[in-house]
């Protein structure tokens, strides 16, 4: 079962650091799984928690949000907004029955292509273990 399951991950990356980092992974010909579908935003601070929930609602098995490292934000403190949001969003997701491995918020700089590739690999591995995302509470046949 786990062998045949290919998790879908939505990666929401900031334009200045993390997207460039992912790009570097590509241009460096680093291999990482094709399970991630990347959405580029101008800043991780722009990532409304709604985006994360919406991704799960539309069928994502995992969501990755990545921004510049603290202090490196192109907009000075956009990533601090992300940092303040993340723990509460994680708590909310946990209560809603979304396992912690399904949501990760990381910092990846433009030079960290290798780190980016490793994070995606790890996430795919973890998600293969826990299987597809299922809504909390069970379903009715009706």
């Amino acid at each position, binding site marked *: 079962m786990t062998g045949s399951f290919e998790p879908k991950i939505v990666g929401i990356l900031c334009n200045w650091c993390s997207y460039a980092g992912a790009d570097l992974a590509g241009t460096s010909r680093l291999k990482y799984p094709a399970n991630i579908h990347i959405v580029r935003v101008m800043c991780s601070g722009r990532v*409304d*928690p*709604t985006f*994360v*929930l*919406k991704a*799960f*609602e539309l069928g994502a098995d995992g969501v990755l949000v990545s921004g510049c490292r603290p202090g490196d934000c192109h907009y000075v403190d956009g990533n*601090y*907004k992300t*940092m*303040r*949001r*993340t*723990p*509460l*969003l*994680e*708590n*909310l*997701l946990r*209560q*809603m*029955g*979304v396992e912690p491995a399904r949501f990760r918020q990381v910092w990846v700089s433009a030079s960290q292509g290798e780190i980016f590739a490793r994070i995606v690999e790890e996430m795919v591995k973890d998600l293969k273990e826990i299987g597809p995302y299922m*809504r*909390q*509470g*069970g*379903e*009715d046949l*009706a």
Partner: protein
Amino acid sequence: MPKLNLAIYWAAACGGCDVAILDLDEKILNVAEAANIVLWPIAMDYKYQDLSLLPKDSIDVCLFNGAVRNSEQKELAEILRERSRVMVAFGSCACFGGIPGLANFSNREGILKRVYKTSPTTVNHEGILPQAETAVPEGTLTLPAFMNRVYTLNQVVDVDYYLPGCPPPPDLIWTAVEAIVSGNLPPKGSVIAGTKSLCDTCQRVKEQKNLKGFVRPHEIIPDPEKCLLEQGLVCCGPATRDGCGHRCIKANMPCRGCFGPTGNIHDQGAKLVSALTSILQATTKEEARQAAETIVDAAGTFYRFGLPDALLQRVKRREQA
């Protein structure tokens, strides 16, 4: 003008919506004058057979309160929808799932086990659970099926209008009644309430929001004039639709979001994560984590009245999907 045929039905609800209709006081007589009430909450399943015989569209307006929790309520919602020209989700339970919707944190099995087996006063050595059919010496007794989850009305049938509130305040009920009676109805899908957020219309003094973390309502005596959020209380005002008359806030208690999100918010919980963390001072991950821990039941607070309507729980009707 011919009298309107009005149906008022209640599903998984507490009856507070019915009391709210009675709180129209003497205006209730105007309702009786303008409308022929073909179904009142209490009249529901014994009219069940009669209801099935009613032709399509023979009810002008159906005010449906309560969430959909069991098989009987689902069936009744379908029957009423087919026979009603206008279907109004009346009150927070029908609109968003309401307090009974909190049951979606658990499921059928979990609820039955707690209620009938492990509660401290229950004596049930045989482990009896309510059954769809029970044979008694005289015949068979039946019960509706308890479903796994709670649904909002629009997850079960098509809804024309939404009248939120737990319960809806009499002035909004009257607005809706007048619109219905005059035939001057807003576009389909309209929410009969304010368009702004509760914060936008709140009269409390707002200065600067800059918090280390939050406090719980029993931990402080808040200043009755100042913004409750600034005083550290989790208030759902930033993500909640206006129209309630600020009833809780005037009683010096924070909003719990019974009017649901405003039109431009996709998810009340997500919006509150964003709003509440935007007023935190935290400059390190650890500080942010500690601040988040001061909100002890985030999902149960942010989705207090709307868990079945939360993005992560929302179920689409077959015809919508």
